[in-house]
């Protein structure tokens, strides 16, 4: 390969990095580092312009290592590696330096210190890049089958989409019927269509499909394996079922928060939730008197800080329906702020006002008070605009509560090794760039398991997740990680430490005719954690891309600031 020639590309990320770090000084400094043959800054290195510049400069300056100092490798590494590969540079000769999440964004008030830190991080990157070697990745087959966990609007949409493409689909639903939360609603907004007119055709399509297998009243007990071949164990009423799939879609959805103890729900007769009201409407009740809605019940509180997102729209929808069904009724919505987002909901908000629904704002520190004995009789609320307390007669109080994740999210998160947040909503790989994927390859997310979504969003995300899952299954194979362990037999003494610590039984010390007492790594089983490398007394087994040599050289350059001792 010849001498190491490093090119360093420093990204301003608009003003995200350039606004806090003195890029000019960082460039000057980087230019002075050994083995660096080209430096440049880009407004956005990830833009088309930035990527073509990387490609041009590799050719022009004969670069054989590329460093991008920008955001996080967790989102952008693949993009830059691909750019290198396109002009014939091995993708593993690329090194990422994170100067945004790990520098400019967390030291916004200390531009000088942040600039110095960025310089040092780049120096560490240069040191690692100097020790990088080209790697070749193996590939593995992807089974053309998907497991969809959850049979709600998003899961079913994903299932239909994948089945239409000819893939086998397994839907595991923990309740006794398909359709999810949508099947329990009365009417959908916008459009004023009955929910079952939407849900039933979807459920029927799924039931008719010869590609889709449905497991009702079932839960996923165990998931092992990785993209291409996940081995699944499902607990069904008929007993244990085992099968394997190439990809997994998490569409476990959400449920309405039951506001136990809030505003006397469960204590006073006539205090309901929105879902309970919808079911009452579904049963055909026509007469209503004085109805008071209380929005943000159990949401945007210190315990549950997030906004339920759909609650406002739900209250707007049901308030207007009540006025239309029962014109003699009085309907008042007590709200903290009306979040009628998007192109339709704002219009619906006005429609509700035109239909005679009253909206009154309350203060979170002076919440409404539900009054009654056995049965609700009135609601007292401090009217923010008039500055006085008012008393509203109430024959029924409807609490608008947020959606919360369905049970089992934490368990699933553990099985799939994907993250959840403090409320047990799942976290995608990147909230803008990879919204329906997890950081774990072959696992995707759709619908309200991520955050409260309406049906349009649930369907869109279901189809998006299906499209993402279809990509590796259509290709039929995926390229495996090349940063796996490899043994140098000359150094191996056959002690077996590596075999002992490997979580995947990917390493074994072979004792056959040809190989005498040497450790051997199975490239398909190895996941590249590096546990074996850390316990090898001779440095014989190395995790490629994270070798002892590479990491120790970074430590050294960090300790000896000029780096002169190591180059």
């Amino acid at each position: 390969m010849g001498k190491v020639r490093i090119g360093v590309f420093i990204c301003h990320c608009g003003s995200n990095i350039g606004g806090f770090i003195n890029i000019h000084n960082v460039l000057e400094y980087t230019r002075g580092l050994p083995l660096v043959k080209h430096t440049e800054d880009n407004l956005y290195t990830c833009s088309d312009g930035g990527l073509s510049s990387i490609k041009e400069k590799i050719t022009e300056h004969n670069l054989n290592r590329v460093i991008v100092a920008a955001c996080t490798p967790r989102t952008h590494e693949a993009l830059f590696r691909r750019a290198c590969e396109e002009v014939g540079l091995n993708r593993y000769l690329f090194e990422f330096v994170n100067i945004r999440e790990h520098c400019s964004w967390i030291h916004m008030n200390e531009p000088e210190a942040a600039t110095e830190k960025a310089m040092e991080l780049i120096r560490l990157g240069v040191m690692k890049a100097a020790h990088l070697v080209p790697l070749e990745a193996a590939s593995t087959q992807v089974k053309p089958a998907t497991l969809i966990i959850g049979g709600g609007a998003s899961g079913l949409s994903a299932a239909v989409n994948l089945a239409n493409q000819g893939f086998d689909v397994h839907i595991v639903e923990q309740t006794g019927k398909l359709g999810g939360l949508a099947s329990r609603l009365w009417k959908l907004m916008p459009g004023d269509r009955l929910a079952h007119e939407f849900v039933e055709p979807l459920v029927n399509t799924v039931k008719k499909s010869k590609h889709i297998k449905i497991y009702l009243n079932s839960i996923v007990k165990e998931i092992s394996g990785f993209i291409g071949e996940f081995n699944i164990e499902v607990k069904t009423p008929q007993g244990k079922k085992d099968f394997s799939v190439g990809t997994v879609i998490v569409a476990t959805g959400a449920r309405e928060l039951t506001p136990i103890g809030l505003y006397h729900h469960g204590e006073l007769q006539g205090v309901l939730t929105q879902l309970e009201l919808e079911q009452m409407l579904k049963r055909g009740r026509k007469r209503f008197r004085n109805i008071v809605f209380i929005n943000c019940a159990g949401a945007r509180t210190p315990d549950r800080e997030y906004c339920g997102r759909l609650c406002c729209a739900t209250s707007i929808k049901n308030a207007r329906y009540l006025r239309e069904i029962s014109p003699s009724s009085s309907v008042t919505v007590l709200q903290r702020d009306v979040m009628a987002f998007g192109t339709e909901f704002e219009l619906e908000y006005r429609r509700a006002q035109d239909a005679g629904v009253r909206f009154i704002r309350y203060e979170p520190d002076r919440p409404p008070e539900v009054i009654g004995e056995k049965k609700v009789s009135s609601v007292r609320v401090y009217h923010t605009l008039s500055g006085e307390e008012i008393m509203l007669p109430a024959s029924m109080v409807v609490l608008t509560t947020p959606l919360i994740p369905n049970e089992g999210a934490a368990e699933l998160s553990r099985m799939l090794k994907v993250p959840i947040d403090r409320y047990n909503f799942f976290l995608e790989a990147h909230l803008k760039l990879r919204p329906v994927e997890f950081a774990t390859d072959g696992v995707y997310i759709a619908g309200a398991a991520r955050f409260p979504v309406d049906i349009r969003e649930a369907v869109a995300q279901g189809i998006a997740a299906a499209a993402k899952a279809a990509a590796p299954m259509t290709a039929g194979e995926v390229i495996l990680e090349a940063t796996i362990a490899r043994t140098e037999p000359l150094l191996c003494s056959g002690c077996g430490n590596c075999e002992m610590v490997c979580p995947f039984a990917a390493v074994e010390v072979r004792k056959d005719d040809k190989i005498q007492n040497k450790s051997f790594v199975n490239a398909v089983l190895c996941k590249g954690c590096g546990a074996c490398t850390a316990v090898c007394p001779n440095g014989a087994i190395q995790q490629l891309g994270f070798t002892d040599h590479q990491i120790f050289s970074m430590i050294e350059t960090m300790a000896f600031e000029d780096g002169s001792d190591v180059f």
Partner: protein
Amino acid sequence: MSSENKSKAYQPKILVFACNWCSYAGADMAGVSRLQMPPNCRVIRVMCSARVRPEMILSALFKGIDAVLVLGCHPGDCHYSEGNYYTRRRGIILKKLFDAFGMMQERFQIRWISAAEGVRFSETIREMVERVARLGPNPLGKDHGRFTP
């Protein structure tokens, strides 16, 4: 310390090993949330905390880096099933070794940080920087004795 000589003040340097799946993502989360923290830490990404061999920690401390922080997934959450258990056991033994020699005990710490715990990451960094500021420079480092007149 007055503001004039602040720039010359001793700045501890802390090496952080963060596992790709939880802690590095947690650090990213801290960045995305714009959680401000002292600029004394340098993160080296490893795929799993179990990749960190004890020699790396020893090497860093013996070469004068003021402290080493190893971050991994919470017990039970390791992307590779059991890597962080090795880290935990290894950490206990290494600490005993430091205890036996009466040195470096506090300069090496292990913490568990998940991908969602940006706040915990920033608090961990802050706590570590404060700890090292209290201990003073690494006695094996070039900054040792800079406080003594």
